[in-house]
Structure formats: structure tokens, C-alpha cells
């Protein structure tokens, strides 16, 4: 019953406000900025009562175009010209702007004086400002106003919020307003309002209300209903927070997994095919990342207009650079070491030392700055306190695309068929006329190229420095050990498993202990399955 009556009351409010708004807008249209201009002039009056009257009038008129001027008033940035026209200056600027349009005044009037404001005026102006913002036609301004009121709302803003809530249509803004209102309600002493606030807290489960709820759930609260309601709301928040944490950990695990996958994919292919561990594989990641950096520099210098798209050019270039490096290495060094895996390991380590030192000499020992293009900045806020950065989402998608491409190459092309044949039985494949040494060369290049792609991805989410490869190489070796060789599925499952395991262990055990646990797990796991998760059914040498 009570609820319905409240709802009626809300309707009434809404109608009233609507009428006011319509009236105000009609009025302002009719006189074409005339009264607004007039009222604004009142703000510059030395008489406190005139200022207060002007503020109230601005509130009644409800025109959002004075928001900038009011903000300027509170920040001591409002100026009055000699003829009484009101100007303001933007923060950290000196040029005067028209108070209503925000346009730079031309010519700049001379002899403009600062409008003096005292704290009383500020106190009166802030709610008016809040009200105007809450009614602003811009969704983001309304949202920001609601968030701001949640932080520092006062008793009188409650009714403003209630009014705004009734006409608000965008769910996101409604929620923010409801939370701000709930907070004020919880902080009030009226039990009815507190209960209403609890209902909101319970349904929305917003973590920011936690401290108020804890206060109400304390034994000092006399009202049984409120205490119980607060405790329930706290429970809702807790369980919601657990979900948020879990999803966050899963997301970060997925992000790590995609990096591991990009790093290990090429490693697994070359290890499966050639039986050699390429210690310089991490440096292929580094080459990819530095190629991205170089492309960024080139765009800055020659095509600053299309800097947004530098990444699109970096992807193929990084792939080709690393592929080329891989092919050269295979042709000059690796192919002489087939059948001697331990020596290959040492030789490729030597290669990696040379590459690191070269990059250090060319680009310097410090990390270089690779910026996200604007379309990868920011993130999607899928819940309160859980923002998924776009760059990480992009890396995950990129890893998926690359994996699908590699899979297609291995399973759907002639080259892939030959690669699989050589992996299973080199001499038989050779007898059937497959040019195994050419396959070796291309696959080594391809494996390196994939790592180059991984480097592009890494440059978007982490630091780019000469030691970049070293950080990831050991983890990607673990993926290969765990996943087994020659099977894409093994690599995928292993990197997913390691990524998720690492990130879910981190909150409990800390990053380092988590790593040690993962290592112990790997050692125990290969006790049971020395060949990795998926073993190749074929004649491979044990």
C-alpha cells in the first residue's frame, strides 16, 4: 500500500517538474536568451540577496546552458565586463568567454572584474548546479552529476535526486541516481528513508554503500528491521563482489593465457617439427614489439594524421620481420644442429644474446613507449569496480584469430599437410617426396613470425624493453612442456590452464608463490603424462 502511495506521489512530482521544465524552456525560447542573460548579471551583484534570488531563478528556469557559468562562479572564474556582461574563463586559461555560449569573446573586453564569491554563495550555488546538471540533456553529464552527488550530496540534494530519478530514462544513470539517493537515505535519521535506501542497496548491491551499511548493521542500531536489512544488503554486496572478483580473475587469466598462447604457439610448432628448443624465441617477441615501436615512430614522423591506424600496419610488418629473422637463423645456424637438441638450445641462447645486445645498442637499454591507439584506450565497465580494458580484450581476440589462422594453415593447406607429415615421420615424408628441409625453414620462419605477432600484442599491454622476451620465454616453455608437442589443442589447453591457474592462485598465494605452485603442478603432471596433455598418435621418437 505504502509503496503505491509513494509511487503516486512520485508521479505528481514528475508532472510538476515536467510542467516547470516545459514552461521554462518555452519562456527561454520566447525571449531568446534575454532573461537568462539578465538573471546571470544578478550573480555579479555585490548584494547577497540579489545573488541568491538570481540563483533561485536560474534553478527555476532550469536551463543547462548556465552550468559552465555556475561552475566558474564556484571556482572564482566568473568575470563581469564593464558593461555588466558576464564572462568566464576556462580552467587554467585567461581568455574570457561568453558566459552562456562559451564562445571566446571577440574583442576581449578590457577592465573585466572578478566576481567575488563567499562560501555562503557557494553553498547556495552547488545544489542549483547539481540540479541543472541532473537535468542536463547530456547523458554523461547527468551520470557524472549523480556520481558526484553520491560522494558529497547534502540533505537538500535528496529531493533533487528524487525528482531527477523520476524523469530519468537511461538505466545506467537511473542506477547511479538511485545509489546516490540511497546513500543519502541511509545517512539520514528517518527510519522510513533508511529502509527505502536498504531496498535499493539490496537490489543493486553497490559496494560503495558498504560503509554506511556496516554502520547500520552494527548492534548500536536500535531498529531491528534496519539492522537486519543492512545485514542482508551487506550479504548481497559480498556475494556480488565475489562474482566480480572471480570474473576479474578469469578475465586476467584469459588475457595472460592469450599472451602465453601467442608466445608458445610458434615454439610448439617448431619444437614438434624440428625437435629443437629455440631459446631465441622470446627475442622474436621482442623483435615484434620493437617493430611496432618503429612503425609508431614512422607514423608519428610521416603520417601523423593516420597515427590511429599504425597498429594495423605494425601487425604485418612485425610478422614479416620476425619471419625473416627466423628464416635467416634457420638457414645459417639451426639447420646444422638438427639432431643435437641440447646444442641447439645453447646456440639459440647465443643468438638471443646477440639480438638483445643489438636492440640495446639501436634503441637504448631503457624501455620504449608504445602507445595504445585511441580506439584501444579505456575499457568496458561491465560492473561496478570491474573494468575490462579494451587493449586486453583486443589481445584476447587477436590470439583467437592467430590461433584459428595457424590451425587453418596446418589443417587446411598443402603446406600444413606436409608439415604434419614431417612431424610424424620425417624420413617417410622425405621418401614421399616432401622437401623436408624447405618445410623446416618455412616452419621455423612461421613460428618466429607468430612470435612477432605476439610481440605486437605484448607491446599494447606491457612494457617494451630489450629483456621483453626473457620474461615470457620460461612461461611459454612451460606451456610447451605441459601441452605436448605437435598438437595445437595441447598448446591451447595448456596456455589456458596455466594462465587461469596463475591468475586464480594469485589472490590467495601471491604472484610468486602462485608461480611456484604452478611449477610444482607441472612437475607432478608430467609424472603422469610425460608426453604432455595430448600425445601425438604416430611414430614419434621417444
Amino acid at each position, binding site marked *: 500500500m505504502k509503496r503505491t502511495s509513494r509511487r503516486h506521489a512520485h508521479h505528481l512530482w514528475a508532472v510538476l517538474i515536467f510542467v516547470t521544465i516545459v514552461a521554462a524552456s518555452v519562456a527561454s525560447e520566447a525571449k531568446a536568451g534575454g532573461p537568462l542573460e539578465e538573471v546571470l548579471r544578478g550573480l555579479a551583484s555585490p548584494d547577497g540577496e540579489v545573488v541568491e534570488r538570481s540563483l533561485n531563478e536560474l534553478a527555476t528556469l532550469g536551463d543547462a546552458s548556465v552550468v559552465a557559468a555556475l561552475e566558474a562562479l564556484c571556482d572564482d572564474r566568473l568575470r563581469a565586463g564593464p558593461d555588466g556582461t558576464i564572462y568566464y574563463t576556462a580552467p587554467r586559461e585567461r581568455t574570457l568567454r561568453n558566459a552562456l555560449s562559451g564562445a571566446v569573446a571577440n574583442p576581449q573586453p578590457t577592465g573585466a572584474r572578478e566576481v567575488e564569491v563567499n562560501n555562503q554563495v557557494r553553498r547556495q550555488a552547488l545544489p542549483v548546479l547539481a540540479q541543472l546538471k541532473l537535468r542536463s540533456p547530456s547523458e554523461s553529464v547527468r551520470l557524472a552529476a549523480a556520481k558526484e552527488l553520491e560522494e558529497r550530496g547534502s540533505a537538500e540534494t535528496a529531493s533533487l535526486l528524487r525528482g531527477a530519478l523520476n524523469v530519468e530514462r537511461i538505466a545506467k544513470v537511473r542506477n547511479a541516481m538511485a545509489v546516490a539517493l540511497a546513500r543519502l537515505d541511509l545517512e539520514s535519521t528517518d527510519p522510513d528513508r533508511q529502509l527505502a535506501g536498504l531496498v535499493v542497496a539490496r537490489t543493486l548491491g553497490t559496494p560503495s554503500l558498504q560503509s554506511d551499511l556496516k554502520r547500520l548493521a552494527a548492534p548500536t542500531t536500535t531498529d531491528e528491521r534496519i539492522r537486519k536489512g543492512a545485514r542482508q544488503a551487506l550479504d548481497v554486496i559480498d556475494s556480488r563482489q565475489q562474482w566480480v572478483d572471480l570474473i576479474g580473475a578469469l578475465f586476467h587469466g584469459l588475457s595472460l593465457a592469450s599472451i602465453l598462447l601467442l608466445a608458445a604457439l610458434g615454439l610448439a610448432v617448431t619444437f614438434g617439427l624440428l625437435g629443437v628448443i629455440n631459446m631465441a624465441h622470446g627475442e622474436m617477441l621482442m623483435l615484434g614489439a620493437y617493430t611496432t615501436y618503429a612503425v609508431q615512430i614512422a607514423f608519428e614522423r610521416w603520417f601523423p594524421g593516420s597515427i590511429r591506424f599504425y597498429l594495423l600496419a605494425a601487425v604485418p610488418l612485425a610478422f614479416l620481420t620476425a619471419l625473416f629473422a627466423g628464416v635467416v637463423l634457420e638457414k645459417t645456424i639451426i639447420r*646444422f644442429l638438427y639432431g643435437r*637438441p*641440447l646444442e641447439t638450445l645453447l646456440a639459440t*641462447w*647465443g643468438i638471443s644474446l646477440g639480438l638483445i*645486445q643489438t636492440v640495446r645498442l639501436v634503441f637504448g637499454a631503457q624501455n620504449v613507449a608504445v602507445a595504445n591507439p585511441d580506439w584501444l584506450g579505456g575499457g568496458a565497465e561491465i560492473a561496478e569496480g570491474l573494468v575490462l580494458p579494451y587493449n586486453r580484450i583486443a589481445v584476447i581476440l587477436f590470439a583467437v584469430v592467430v590461433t584459428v589462422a595457424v590451425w587453418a594453415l596446418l589443417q587446411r593447406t598443402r603446406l600444413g599437410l606436409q608439415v604434419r607429415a614431417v612431424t610424424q615421420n620425417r624420413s617417410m615424408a622425405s621418401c614421399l617426396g616432401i622437401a623436408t628441409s624447405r618445410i623446416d625453414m618455412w616452419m621455423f620462419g612461421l613460428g618466429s613470425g607468430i612470435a612477432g605477432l605476439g610481440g605486437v600484442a605484448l607491446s599494447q599491454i606491457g612494457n617494451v624493453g630489450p629483456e621483453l622476451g626473457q620474461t615470457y620465454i*620460461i612461461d611459454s616453455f612451460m606451456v610447451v612442456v605441459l601441452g605436448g608437442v605437435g598438437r595445437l589443442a595441447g598448446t591451447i589447453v595448456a596456455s589456458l590452464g596455466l594462465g587461469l591457474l596463475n591468475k586464480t592462485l594469485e589472490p590467495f598465494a601471491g604472484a610468486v608463490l602462485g608461480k*611456484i605452485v604452478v611449477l610444482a603442478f607441472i612437475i607432478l603432471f608430467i609424472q603422469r603424462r610425460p608426453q604432455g596433455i595430448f600425445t601425438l598418435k604416430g611414430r614419434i621418437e621417444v
Partner: protein
Amino acid sequence: MLARVRQRLLEMHTTRAWAALLSAAALVLVVLPLSNGVMAPNSALHAPDYLVPLLGKFLCFGISALSVDIIWGFAGILSLGHGLFFALGGYAMGMYLMRSIAGEGVYRSVLPDFMVFLDWKSLPWYWRGFDSFPFAMMMALLGPGLLAFVFGYFAFRSKIKGVYFSIVTQALTYAAMLLFFQNSAGFGGNNGLTDFKHILGFPLHAATTRLGLYVVSGVTLLLAYLACRYITTSKFGRVLTAIRDAELKARFCGYESTNYKLFVWTFSAVLCALAGALYVPQVGIINPSEMQPSNSIEMAIWVAVGGRGSLAGAVLGAWLINGGKSWLTAAFPSAWLYVLGALFILVTLFLPKGIAGAWSQLMRKRRP
């Protein structure tokens, strides 16, 4: 009895090789100390003071090269985790040295300085007993030995070998490095253990103490060499090489290869830990960067350059490379990594048996 000893000694080396070995030992253990300790400082025969700890360091590297060689050259297992054992031995020694300066640190506390800095009130349990030198030395050998045994047991039992084993040992070392980097682990974090003042009451900065440590390292190297030589020339050693060359055949002949590998792996780890324990008082610091993957791999390249399967070659390789490193990093700092990288590549491509292998090939050609 005497005849049997004589025969065993001759199995280890020919008379000529014994003579060469003993003269080398005399050079290292008698001539240099005399030249540093007895000769007048301005004489041309005087070995300068800075040389003693440097050469002492090289002797320790020689011991760790032996430990890598006996497992890689004779059992075919390439460990990329020997830096871990080296560092663990070093940490045990470092803990003793830290305890021996209790009350003399910056904060005048009984606790090591870094613990005071972290606001710890008492020693963690694993620091107990390290104020006793014999206990610390026991732990320096026992700790790494136990770790190697447990790890080796699981690894060899599940037939992890080849590059797999190398990678897993590398990951183990890496994980340990991350652990030791943490302040909360109780080993001084990033900075490690340092500011040592004296060992067994002798001041560490005194020239005589340094000479003493140098001689102890030299004697240890000689003993380690003889022990390794004893093992590799025994029947055990021959089974080991059989396992290295054809593990399946050796197993079919009835040799449980796992046990052989496990023994030599643990022995090698203990030897490397000993090198670490001798190394720390001579350089005055131990920190987690000793466990960097690159350190362990560098040990492998000492052996590769010197010659896998040749104990003397391994020691020689360690000396050559570290000598080159000392000189090059001072003279041409940016060239060193290129030289090292090129060594890795060229030795594996053109000198698969290292200097020792090339030498014996040369000898065979000259005297067919």
C-alpha cells in the same frame, strides 16, 4: 694394498698427466700465494692484491664447471639450474656471515640489518643455527643436495630428459629467483646478503684472509677434480657414460639408470653448492641475480668451450671465459654479449667437443 692404490691412481691418470696436474696445482697453490704473500710489493714477481680474490672467484667457477661437466659431459643431462645450487650454497654461507656480525650492523641489532628494516622482531625459524659455522656448512651442502635429490627423483622417475629436463630445471631456478627476490622470504630481497665483516673471526678485508680463502678454494678445486675423476674412471662412471650414449640398452643390461642419474645429479648439485659457499666470502655479496637463467646457461658454455666430458677442459673453459669476461667488460663493455653469443654459436657449430676435444684430435694427428 699400496700396489692397488697405485694401480687405481694410474687408472685415473697416466704418469705424465699426474705430473701435469700436480705442477698446475703447485702453480696455483704454492707459487701464487708465495708471490702475493712473500714477495715485496714493488717486486716484479709480486702478484697484486686485487688479483687474489679475482683468481679465487675463478677457482670457484672451476668447481661449478666441474659440477656441470660431470652431469652433462658424463651423463648427458644438461642442467640449466646449477645457478640455483650455486646460489643456495652461497646463501647458506651468507647467512652464517650475516649472523657472525650480529650487533655490528648499522642498527646495532642482533638481527641482520634488512630484518630490522622490515621491522621483524625475531629471527625466522630457518635462520636458527646459522651462527654456528659447521651447521651453516652442513646446510650449504645438505639443502641443495636435498632439493636436487627430491627434484631429481621425480624428474628421472618420469623419464624427463633432454631439453625437457633442461627447461624444467630452468623454470625451477627462475621460480626460486622470484621467491628470493621477495622481502618476505627472509633472505634480504633484492639486495641479498652483504656487508660481511669477518669469517671465523678473521677480517674479510685483510689480505691474508683473502689469500687463505683463495688457497682453500684451490684445494677444494683440486679435491673436487680428483673426486670427479675418481667417479668417472670407476665402473660407476663407465655405466654412466653407457647411459648417456644409449640409455635403453643400459637399462636392458640391468642397470637401473634412474639411480645412477640421481646419484650423479645430487653429487653435482652438492659440488656446485660448495663452489657457491666458497664464492660468497670472496666477493662479499650474494643476491638473487645469481639465479638468473643466464648464469646457469653461462656455466654450460664454460663446459662447452672447454670440452664436454673432459674435466680439465671444463675447468679451463671456466677460466678462459671468465678471464675474457673480466677483461672485455672493462675494455669494451658493449662487445661482451656479442662475444659470448658468438661463443655459444661457434662452439656448438664448429667445436662440438670443445678445446679439449680439439686438442686431443690435434695430438692424435701428430702422433698416429
